Protein backbone atom coordinates (compact mmCIF):
# COMPACT_ATOMS: atom_id res chain seq x y z
CA UNK A 1 0.00 0.00 0.00
CA UNK A 2 1.24 3.43 -0.83
CA UNK A 3 1.81 5.55 2.26
CA UNK A 4 0.43 9.05 2.34
CA UNK A 5 3.79 10.74 2.14
CA UNK A 6 3.13 14.22 0.94
CA UNK A 7 6.24 16.09 -0.03
CA UNK A 8 5.77 19.65 1.07
CA UNK A 9 7.26 22.41 -0.97
CA UNK A 10 7.37 26.11 -0.52
CA UNK A 11 3.75 26.87 0.27
CA UNK A 12 3.80 30.02 2.32
CA UNK A 13 1.51 30.35 5.31
CA UNK A 14 0.24 33.88 5.56
CA UNK A 15 -2.15 35.78 7.75
CA UNK A 16 -5.61 36.09 6.32
CA UNK A 17 -5.92 39.02 3.96
CA UNK A 18 -8.98 40.53 2.33
CA UNK A 19 -8.20 38.51 -0.80
CA UNK A 20 -7.97 35.30 1.21
CA UNK A 21 -11.25 35.95 2.94
CA UNK A 22 -12.95 36.79 -0.37
CA UNK A 23 -11.66 33.64 -2.01
CA UNK A 24 -12.65 31.46 0.93
CA UNK A 25 -16.12 32.99 0.83
CA UNK A 26 -16.44 32.29 -2.90
CA UNK A 27 -15.54 28.67 -2.28
CA UNK A 28 -17.96 28.43 0.64
CA UNK A 29 -20.72 29.82 -1.57
CA UNK A 30 -19.97 27.17 -4.17
CA UNK A 31 -19.92 24.47 -1.50
CA UNK A 32 -23.32 25.60 -0.24
CA UNK A 33 -24.67 25.60 -3.79
CA UNK A 34 -23.49 22.03 -4.42
CA UNK A 35 -24.93 20.98 -1.08
CA UNK A 36 -28.26 22.56 -1.94
CA UNK A 37 -28.31 20.80 -5.31
CA UNK A 38 -27.57 17.51 -3.61
CA UNK A 39 -30.37 17.93 -1.12
CA UNK A 40 -33.03 19.53 -3.27
CA UNK A 41 -32.85 17.69 -6.56
CA UNK A 42 -33.45 14.12 -7.58
CA UNK A 43 -31.66 13.48 -10.87
CA UNK A 44 -29.50 10.39 -10.29
CA UNK A 45 -27.02 8.92 -7.87
CA UNK A 46 -24.29 9.59 -10.43
CA UNK A 47 -25.13 13.31 -10.54
CA UNK A 48 -25.25 13.47 -6.76
CA UNK A 49 -21.88 11.79 -6.64
CA UNK A 50 -20.41 14.52 -8.80
CA UNK A 51 -22.04 17.27 -6.75
CA UNK A 52 -20.99 15.71 -3.47
CA UNK A 53 -17.40 15.56 -4.72
CA UNK A 54 -17.56 19.18 -5.88
CA UNK A 55 -19.05 20.12 -2.51
CA UNK A 56 -16.32 18.28 -0.59
CA UNK A 57 -13.59 19.81 -2.75
CA UNK A 58 -14.96 23.38 -2.47
CA UNK A 59 -15.38 23.09 1.28
CA UNK A 60 -11.93 21.58 1.72
CA UNK A 61 -10.34 24.27 -0.45
CA UNK A 62 -12.08 27.06 1.45
CA UNK A 63 -10.64 25.67 4.70
CA UNK A 64 -7.23 25.35 3.05
CA UNK A 65 -7.30 28.96 1.83
CA UNK A 66 -7.84 30.13 5.40
CA UNK A 67 -5.28 27.68 6.81
CA UNK A 68 -2.65 28.30 4.13
CA UNK A 69 -2.34 24.65 3.09
CA UNK A 70 -3.83 24.79 -0.40
CA UNK A 71 -1.19 22.66 -2.12
CA UNK A 72 -1.64 19.88 0.43
CA UNK A 73 -5.41 20.12 0.08
CA UNK A 74 -5.04 19.64 -3.68
CA UNK A 75 -3.08 16.44 -3.08
CA UNK A 76 -5.72 15.24 -0.64
CA UNK A 77 -8.54 16.00 -3.07
CA UNK A 78 -6.71 14.26 -5.91
CA UNK A 79 -5.99 11.17 -3.86
CA UNK A 80 -9.40 10.83 -2.28
CA UNK A 81 -11.82 12.12 -4.89
CA UNK A 82 -10.02 11.41 -8.15
CA UNK A 83 -8.29 8.15 -7.28
CA UNK A 84 -4.82 9.36 -8.22
CA UNK A 85 -1.86 9.03 -5.89
CA UNK A 86 0.77 10.38 -8.29
CA UNK A 87 0.22 14.13 -8.26
CA UNK A 88 2.44 17.17 -8.36
CA UNK A 89 1.62 20.85 -8.01
CA UNK A 90 4.13 23.01 -9.87
CA UNK A 91 4.79 26.70 -10.33
CA UNK A 92 6.55 27.90 -13.47
CA UNK A 93 8.97 30.80 -13.33
CA UNK A 94 9.07 32.47 -16.72
CA UNK A 95 12.20 34.52 -16.01
CA UNK A 96 14.42 31.59 -15.03
CA UNK A 97 12.59 28.88 -17.00
CA UNK A 98 12.57 26.83 -13.82
CA UNK A 99 9.81 24.89 -12.15
CA UNK A 100 9.08 24.79 -8.41
CA UNK A 101 7.44 21.70 -7.00
CA UNK A 102 5.01 23.07 -4.42
CA UNK A 103 3.67 19.71 -3.27
CA UNK A 104 3.65 16.18 -4.54
CA UNK A 105 2.69 12.65 -3.68
CA UNK A 106 3.83 9.38 -5.24
CA UNK A 107 5.77 11.08 -8.04
CA UNK A 108 9.08 9.51 -9.00
CA UNK A 109 12.32 11.32 -9.80
CA UNK A 110 11.83 10.26 -13.42
CA UNK A 111 8.39 11.84 -13.56
CA UNK A 112 9.69 15.05 -11.97
CA UNK A 113 12.55 15.14 -14.43
CA UNK A 114 10.15 14.57 -17.33
CA UNK A 115 8.30 17.71 -16.24
CA UNK A 116 11.18 19.97 -15.33
CA UNK A 117 13.16 19.17 -18.45
CA UNK A 118 10.22 20.15 -20.65
CA UNK A 119 9.57 23.61 -19.30
CA UNK A 120 8.51 25.13 -22.60
CA UNK A 121 6.12 22.34 -23.54
CA UNK A 122 4.52 22.37 -20.09
CA UNK A 123 4.22 26.17 -20.28
CA UNK A 124 2.50 25.81 -23.65
CA UNK A 125 0.07 23.23 -22.24
CA UNK A 126 -0.76 25.57 -19.35
CA UNK A 127 -1.32 28.40 -21.80
CA UNK A 128 -4.14 26.42 -23.39
CA UNK A 129 -6.01 27.39 -20.23
CA UNK A 130 -8.38 24.51 -19.66
CA UNK A 131 -8.26 21.50 -17.41
CA UNK A 132 -7.61 18.49 -19.61
CA UNK A 133 -7.98 14.78 -19.41
CA UNK A 134 -5.23 13.39 -21.58
CA UNK A 135 -6.13 10.92 -24.29
CA UNK A 136 -3.19 9.74 -26.37
CA UNK A 137 -5.50 9.10 -29.33
CA UNK A 138 -6.47 12.77 -29.44
CA UNK A 139 -4.41 15.15 -31.55
CA UNK A 140 -2.61 17.62 -29.33
CA UNK A 141 -2.36 15.27 -26.36
CA UNK A 142 0.69 13.40 -27.63
CA UNK A 143 3.23 15.30 -25.58
CA UNK A 144 1.50 14.93 -22.20
CA UNK A 145 0.69 11.28 -22.95
CA UNK A 146 4.34 10.63 -23.83
CA UNK A 147 5.49 11.64 -20.34
CA UNK A 148 2.73 9.66 -18.64
CA UNK A 149 0.43 12.52 -17.66
CA UNK A 150 -3.22 11.52 -17.36
CA UNK A 151 -4.65 14.96 -16.57
CA UNK A 152 -3.49 18.52 -16.18
CA UNK A 153 -5.20 21.44 -14.48
CA UNK A 154 -3.58 24.74 -15.42
CA UNK A 155 -3.25 27.36 -12.70
CA UNK A 156 -2.83 31.07 -13.08
CA UNK A 157 -3.09 34.30 -11.16
CA UNK A 158 -1.84 37.47 -12.77
CA UNK A 159 1.60 36.76 -14.19
CA UNK A 160 2.05 33.60 -12.14
CA UNK A 161 1.34 30.22 -13.69
CA UNK A 162 1.52 26.62 -12.68
CA UNK A 163 -0.32 23.35 -12.93
CA UNK A 164 -1.64 20.36 -11.07
CA UNK A 165 -0.27 17.36 -12.91
CA UNK A 166 -1.79 13.91 -12.49
CA UNK A 167 0.13 10.82 -13.52
CA UNK A 168 -1.12 7.24 -13.10
CA UNK A 169 -4.51 6.57 -11.58
CA UNK A 170 -5.04 3.93 -8.91
CA UNK A 171 -5.50 0.43 -10.38
CA UNK A 172 -9.26 0.42 -9.68
CA UNK A 173 -9.70 3.45 -11.95
CA UNK A 174 -9.38 2.89 -15.67
CA UNK A 175 -9.55 6.53 -16.72
CA UNK A 176 -10.83 9.94 -15.75
CA UNK A 177 -14.47 10.63 -16.66
CA UNK A 178 -16.73 13.61 -17.26
CA UNK A 179 -17.39 14.04 -13.54
CA UNK A 180 -13.66 14.28 -13.00
CA UNK A 181 -13.50 16.98 -15.63
CA UNK A 182 -15.82 19.17 -13.52
CA UNK A 183 -13.65 18.64 -10.47
CA UNK A 184 -10.47 19.37 -12.43
CA UNK A 185 -12.16 22.53 -13.70
CA UNK A 186 -12.97 23.63 -10.15
CA UNK A 187 -9.37 23.05 -9.10
CA UNK A 188 -8.10 24.94 -12.11
CA UNK A 189 -10.26 27.98 -11.37
CA UNK A 190 -9.63 28.28 -7.63
CA UNK A 191 -6.24 26.80 -6.85
CA UNK A 192 -4.25 29.35 -8.89
CA UNK A 193 -5.67 32.38 -7.04
CA UNK A 194 -5.41 30.48 -3.75
CA UNK A 195 -1.77 29.56 -4.21
CA UNK A 196 -0.41 32.56 -6.06
CA UNK A 197 -2.72 35.41 -5.22
CA UNK A 198 -3.45 35.49 -1.52
Amino acid at each position, binding site marked *: *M*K*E*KNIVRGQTAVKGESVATAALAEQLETRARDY*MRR*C*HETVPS*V*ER*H*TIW*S*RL*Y*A*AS*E*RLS*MAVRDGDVAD*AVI*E*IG*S*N*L*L*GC*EEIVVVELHAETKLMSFLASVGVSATQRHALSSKFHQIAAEIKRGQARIVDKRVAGDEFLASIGVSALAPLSQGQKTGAIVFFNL*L*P*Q*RKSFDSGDRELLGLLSVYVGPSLFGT
Partner: protein
Amino acid sequence: MRPKILIVDDSMTTLLMEEMLLKKYTNFDVVQARNGQEAVKVALEELPGLILMDVVMPKMDGFAACREMRRLEKLKRIPIILVTSRGEAENVEKGFESGCNDYLTKPIDSNELVQMVNGYLGAEEGR
Protein backbone atom coordinates in the same frame (compact mmCIF):
# COMPACT_ATOMS: atom_id res chain seq x y z
CA MET B 1 -33.40 6.11 18.15
CA ARG B 2 -31.87 6.04 14.66
CA PRO B 3 -28.68 4.03 14.27
CA LYS B 4 -25.53 6.03 13.78
CA ILE B 5 -22.79 5.52 11.27
CA LEU B 6 -19.26 6.29 12.39
CA ILE B 7 -17.09 7.51 9.52
CA VAL B 8 -13.35 7.51 10.14
CA ASP B 9 -10.79 9.16 7.90
CA ASP B 10 -7.86 11.55 8.29
CA SER B 11 -8.97 13.23 5.07
CA MET B 12 -11.52 15.99 5.65
CA THR B 13 -12.39 15.74 1.95
CA THR B 14 -13.48 12.13 2.31
CA LEU B 15 -15.43 12.82 5.49
CA LEU B 16 -17.30 15.68 3.81
CA MET B 17 -18.22 13.57 0.81
CA GLU B 18 -19.23 10.49 2.78
CA GLU B 19 -21.36 12.53 5.16
CA MET B 20 -23.09 14.27 2.27
CA LEU B 21 -23.94 11.00 0.53
CA LEU B 22 -25.02 9.19 3.69
CA LYS B 23 -27.29 12.06 4.70
CA LYS B 24 -28.78 12.17 1.21
CA TYR B 25 -29.35 8.48 0.71
CA THR B 26 -29.86 7.08 4.20
CA ASN B 27 -31.65 8.30 7.25
CA PHE B 28 -28.88 7.48 9.67
CA ASP B 29 -27.07 9.95 11.86
CA VAL B 30 -23.39 10.39 11.10
CA VAL B 31 -20.56 10.80 13.60
CA GLN B 32 -16.90 11.27 12.71
CA ALA B 33 -13.38 10.45 13.86
CA ARG B 34 -10.03 11.45 12.33
CA ASN B 35 -7.85 8.44 13.23
CA GLY B 36 -8.07 4.91 14.58
CA GLN B 37 -7.49 5.87 18.18
CA GLU B 38 -10.25 8.46 18.10
CA ALA B 39 -12.48 5.97 16.28
CA VAL B 40 -12.27 3.47 19.15
CA LYS B 41 -13.09 6.23 21.65
CA VAL B 42 -16.03 7.60 19.62
CA ALA B 43 -17.33 4.09 18.92
CA LEU B 44 -17.38 3.30 22.65
CA GLU B 45 -19.26 6.54 23.35
CA GLU B 46 -21.71 6.40 20.45
CA LEU B 47 -22.10 2.65 19.83
CA PRO B 48 -22.79 3.13 16.10
CA GLY B 49 -24.67 0.60 14.00
CA LEU B 50 -21.89 0.62 11.41
CA ILE B 51 -18.33 1.84 11.07
CA LEU B 52 -16.86 3.03 7.78
CA MET B 53 -13.11 3.36 8.27
CA ASP B 54 -10.09 4.39 6.21
CA VAL B 55 -6.97 2.22 6.40
CA VAL B 56 -4.00 4.61 6.24
CA MET B 57 -4.33 7.06 9.13
CA PRO B 58 -2.02 8.62 11.73
CA LYS B 59 -1.76 7.40 15.34
CA MET B 60 -3.61 4.13 14.71
CA ASP B 61 -4.37 2.75 11.25
CA GLY B 62 -7.62 1.11 10.20
CA PHE B 63 -6.32 -2.44 10.62
CA ALA B 64 -5.16 -1.81 14.20
CA ALA B 65 -8.37 0.03 15.09
CA CYS B 66 -10.35 -2.86 13.67
CA ARG B 67 -8.41 -5.38 15.77
CA GLU B 68 -8.88 -3.22 18.87
CA MET B 69 -12.62 -2.95 18.29
CA ARG B 70 -12.92 -6.70 17.85
CA ARG B 71 -11.22 -7.13 21.23
CA LEU B 72 -13.75 -4.94 23.03
CA GLU B 73 -16.99 -6.59 24.11
CA LYS B 74 -19.11 -3.49 23.37
CA LEU B 75 -17.77 -3.12 19.82
CA LYS B 76 -17.00 -6.64 18.65
CA ARG B 77 -20.30 -7.16 16.80
CA ILE B 78 -20.51 -3.79 15.03
CA PRO B 79 -20.05 -4.21 11.25
CA ILE B 80 -16.88 -2.52 10.02
CA ILE B 81 -16.33 -1.56 6.39
CA LEU B 82 -12.75 -0.62 5.59
CA VAL B 83 -12.16 1.99 2.91
CA THR B 84 -8.92 1.37 1.05
CA SER B 85 -7.12 3.34 -1.61
CA ARG B 86 -5.96 0.12 -3.19
CA GLY B 87 -8.08 -2.99 -3.40
CA GLU B 88 -5.10 -5.29 -3.79
CA ALA B 89 -5.54 -8.81 -2.51
CA GLU B 90 -3.04 -8.49 0.34
CA ASN B 91 -4.73 -5.40 1.77
CA VAL B 92 -8.14 -6.96 1.50
CA GLU B 93 -6.82 -10.11 3.16
CA LYS B 94 -5.21 -8.08 5.93
CA GLY B 95 -8.48 -6.22 6.44
CA PHE B 96 -10.47 -9.38 6.88
CA GLU B 97 -7.80 -10.79 9.20
CA SER B 98 -8.11 -7.69 11.37
CA GLY B 99 -11.84 -8.33 11.69
CA CYS B 100 -13.55 -6.11 9.14
CA ASN B 101 -16.76 -7.29 7.50
CA ASP B 102 -16.32 -5.72 4.11
CA TYR B 103 -14.31 -3.19 2.16
CA LEU B 104 -14.75 -0.37 -0.33
CA THR B 105 -12.12 1.21 -2.52
CA LYS B 106 -11.49 4.93 -3.01
CA PRO B 107 -12.64 6.98 -4.74
CA ILE B 108 -15.98 6.10 -3.19
CA ASP B 109 -18.63 4.90 -5.60
CA SER B 110 -21.94 6.26 -4.27
CA ASN B 111 -24.06 3.34 -5.44
CA GLU B 112 -21.70 0.87 -3.86
CA LEU B 113 -21.53 2.84 -0.61
CA VAL B 114 -25.29 3.25 -0.22
CA GLN B 115 -26.01 -0.36 -1.14
CA MET B 116 -23.43 -1.64 1.30
CA VAL B 117 -24.60 0.59 4.15
CA ASN B 118 -28.23 -0.32 3.59
CA GLY B 119 -27.23 -3.97 3.29
CA TYR B 120 -25.77 -3.90 6.79
CA LEU B 121 -28.21 -1.54 8.48
CA GLY B 122 -31.37 -2.34 6.53
CA ALA B 123 -32.64 -0.23 3.65
CA GLU B 124 -36.07 0.26 5.24
CA GLU B 125 -34.56 1.52 8.46
CA GLY B 126 -32.31 3.84 6.57
CA ARG B 127 -34.96 5.58 4.50
